């Protein structure tokens, strides 16, 4: 709770809203004991007295009643009515939403049809009809406003509940013997409650406005009582001649609603965990590159690589924490070569790949050091337009889950055509289409012609990934970076895709950087492999050599963990402990805490990647001496 309040008041606008609202609230609560005139005593002699005249701090209205007193009494009424309406709407709406979402099926169907019916009216019509039926009056206006807002809550809460009731913890609770009512109250409700609070805090201002509106129309509070809306309504006839009688209550409504909205937004932001981590920031077109990064010298030797990643450092800056996702990674690929990067989740392999063309989401990502040279040019220093011309043209990507990485609203044909035409607008649409068809055939998509018009959701996972591969080939790139392209696929489909990639690579002399967590895949596809652990490369070398005689203890033990088919039933090898979190990396070797060969010297200083032309390892006590 204190953490919540701290978070809330760090938001300056919300704090401002809270201050204004508390002042208004205090005034409203104290109204009966303040030395004010009776709000209903008329004094026709003082009609339309101007503000700051004797005895009328805020002037008098058309009947000579004291504006200040009426304003405070009106505020009191408006706040109370708005809050009660919000509570009623939230209570009934949420109850309907939870029941509908939890039970689903016919219950859901019937309740939601009823809600649809309420939503078939522009809200004021329903409110007017209800007021017409119940008669004018503040309580009836309150009921009308609450009623027309029930659908909003019902729909929102239903949506959340549907999501929750398919979550596994609800199934787990059922297996633990809980009945429906108990599950709703103890499993679902605690998770829905923040959403209800958010919905309420963001709509209470709106409901104050709506009740004021009904009163403004003369359908809410009736004379002599008045809320802010009816004050404005009564002042309406004179606002051209005596504007102060309408401006004062108008400004009060505005202040209340604005402060409630500010506070409501603050509450939402503080309760919504996605916003808490700053994840809702939009990623920039190019990852931020620190201005003071150290740029290593270019390798100008004759056998320079096609793509040379030098001492790359990529970090995530979240709040005041710094996650060192990639620490001084150096890798290179030559034309026609396939380099594998292998590591577990959080090892920094994907971030390395995305850093190459500045695709790491930024914020929070920042490239703080190193260089990425494509035939000598440092891409990290490149201007946006230059980088854009490299992306998809010279360096293309294949991503993991093709359902989320293809645009859901464009046909795959259009997406392929776009990939071709963004780099060469001279290509006509029909020529690009013909090329797209050819690409689809090259990746062996059956009935390619008719598949061009398909949307991604109409294809299976394997077919979608073929489209992803076709798209990467569109501009005959020099390098393809494949980021776990088969992880989301079934084994039989994975085998098809890997075979396809292998054929394409041999036919075209493509350079591939292949990121995976699977040794089997690396062994079958890659010429060389780099093993990453906690943001660093711990070992690199020809695939066969590394697999046959791993030099780093981590590589060796990781290989041992992978069960191989055909081994029968057995005890599996494990590595005790967990990888370190990259915002708090220990000095020395990152694997030291889990390594059974660890010595005191492993835990101090910086351990360099050492070795020869062919193989390197980052270990003081390697398993194998590198020849």
């Amino acid at each position, binding site marked *: 709770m204190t953490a919540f309040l701290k978070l809330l008041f760090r938001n300056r606008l919300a704090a401002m809203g809270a201050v204004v609202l508390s002042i208004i609230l205090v005034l409203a609560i104290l109204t009966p004991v303040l030395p004010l005139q009776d709000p209903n005593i008329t004094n026709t002699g003082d009609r339309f007295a101007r503000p700051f005249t004797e005895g009328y701090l805020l002037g008098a209205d058309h009947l000579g009643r004291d504006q200040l007193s009426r304003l405070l009494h009106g505020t009191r009424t408006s706040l109370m009515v708005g809050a009660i309406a919000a509570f009623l709407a939230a209570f009934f709406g949420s109850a309907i939403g939870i029941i509908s979402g939890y039970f689903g099926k016919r219950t859901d169907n019937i309740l939601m*049809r009823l809600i649809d*019916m*309420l*939503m*078939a*009216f*522009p*809200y*004021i*019509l329903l409110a*007017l*009809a209800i*007021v017409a*039926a*119940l008669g*004018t009056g503040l309580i009836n206006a309150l009921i009308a406003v609450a009623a027309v807002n029930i659908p909003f809550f019902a729909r929102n809460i239903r949506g959340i509940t549907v999501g929750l009731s398919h979550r596994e913890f609800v199934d787990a609770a059922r297996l633990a013997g809980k009945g429906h009512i108990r599950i709703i109250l103890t499993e679902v409700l605690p998770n829905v409650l923040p959403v209800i609070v958010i919905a309420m805090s963001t709509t209470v*201002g709106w409901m104050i*406005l709506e009740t004021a*509106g009904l009163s*403004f*129309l*003369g*359908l809410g509070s009736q004379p002599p009582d008045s809320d802010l809306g009816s004050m*404005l309504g009564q002042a*309406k006839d004179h606002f051209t001649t005596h*504007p102060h009688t*309408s401006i004062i209550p108008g400004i009060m*409504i*505005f202040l209340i*609603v*604005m402060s409630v*909205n*500010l506070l409501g937004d603050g509450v939402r932001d503080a309760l919504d965990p996605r916003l808490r981590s700053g*994840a*809702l*920031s*939009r*990623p920039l*077109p190019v990852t931020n590159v620190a201005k003071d990064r150290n740029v290593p010298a270019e390798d100008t030797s004759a056998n320079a690589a096609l793509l040379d990643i030098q001492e790359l450092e990529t970090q995530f800056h979240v709040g005041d924490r710094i996650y060192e996702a990639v620490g001084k990674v150096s890798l290179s690929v030559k034309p026609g070569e396939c380099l594998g990067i292998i590591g577990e989740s959080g090892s920094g392999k994907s971030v390395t790949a*995305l850093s190459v063309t500045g*695709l790491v989401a930024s914020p929070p990502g920042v490239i703080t050091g190193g260089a990425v040279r494509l035939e000598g040019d440092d891409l990290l220093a490149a201007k946006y337009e230059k980088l*854009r*011309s*490299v*992306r998809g*043209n010279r360096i293309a*990507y294949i*991503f993991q889950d093709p359902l*989320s*990485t*293809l*645009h*859901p*609203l464009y046909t795959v044909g259009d997406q392929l055509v*776009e990939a071709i035409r*963004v*780099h060469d607008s001279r290509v006509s649409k029909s020529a690009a289409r013909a090329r797209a068809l050819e690409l689809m055939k090259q990746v062996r998509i059956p009935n390619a012609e008719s598949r061009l018009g398909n*949307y991604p*959701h109409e294809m299976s996972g394997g077919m979608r990934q073929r489209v992803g591969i076709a*798209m990467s080939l569109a501009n005959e790139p020099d390098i393809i970076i494949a980021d776990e392209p088969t992880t989301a696929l079934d084994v039989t489909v994975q085998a098809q895709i890997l075979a396809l990639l292998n054929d394409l690579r041999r036919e075209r002399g493509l350079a591939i950087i292949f990121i995976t967590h699977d040794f089997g895949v690396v062994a079958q596809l890659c010429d060389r492999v780099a093993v990453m652990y906690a943001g660093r490369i711990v070992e690199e070398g020809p695939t066969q050599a590394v697999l046959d005689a791993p030099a780093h203890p981590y590589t060796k033990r990781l290989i041992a963990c992978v069960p191989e088919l055909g081994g029968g039933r057995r005890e599996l090898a494990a590595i005790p402990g967990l990888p370190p979190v990259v915002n708090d990396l220990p000095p020395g070797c990152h694997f030291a805490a889990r390594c059974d060969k660890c010595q005191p010297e492993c835990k101090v200083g910086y351990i360099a990647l050492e070795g020869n032309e062919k193989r390197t390892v980052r270990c003081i006590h390697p398993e194998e001496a590198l020849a």
Partner: protein
Amino acid sequence: MGSYILKRLVAAIPVLIGVSVLVFFIMAMIPGDPALAILGAYATPENVAKLNADLGLDKPLVQRYFIWLGNMLTGDFGRSYSQNKPVIDEVMGRFGNTLILAGVAFVLCSILGILAGVVSAARQYGLADKAITFTVLIGISIPSFFLGMILIILFALKLRMFPVSGMYLIYGGGGLADLANHLVLPASALAVVATGVIARLSRSAMLEVLRQDYIRTARAKGVGERRVIMGHALKAAMVSIIPVLGIQAGFVVSGAVYIEMVFDWPGIGQMLVNAISQRDLLLVQGGVVVVAACYVLFNIVVDVAQALLDPRIKT
């Protein structure tokens, strides 16, 4: 697509029936005797009984509903006693005026709102974003009827740029230019709140979409940033913006009621409020049913637009 439209139309029938049932029974709940209200001072027990029989009010409720429904389907909404003409004539004339006002405001708020949201998201945390966010906040907090009054004081009374109220000049008025001149202030006042809501939602929808993997894919293909924002991202964001446009249309029509009162615009809102205070229930009933029916049809248009945009919706 044709079959989808047909399906939506068929699905609207039960909703329309539900709407009519709801309106009819809400109105039937009204305490007091309409005949008594109509006859006023002339109410004698005989007159009341006769009028009740004339109006069919002596029949059972359910039967009355079907009679009412049947009449309505043939365009007979009864006769307004306060206006002394058929309800349908009064409602249609008034509703047309409301549609002009609300339609202009709706187009205004949709375009401005989406535009502001997109700019705001594209320049997140920049100056434009902060300015838009702040303006939007004021826009959604100010009561539209109060805003209307301020606009009148500023632009009609002080600056004399636009007329204070009404739809046409009383003397020598008429024509499109005159109408447009009268529309500026009320349509602006009406559009402000909805613009704010749409801008906010468009901003968050755009921010949500911009974080998606397929935006990264577009960038990885080398698609330029303008096209990423205005093409890939906006198209995907429209999926969540369009339903809100549908809901906001309802809010614009609702807001029109206040604006009509402030600007003395001869629309259906003004008519309804007056009819309620005069207890002219047939007029209220007719007005509510017509507007609700139009809104249901409008939402079908919204659904169809959504289905055209999003192929994942089963058509």
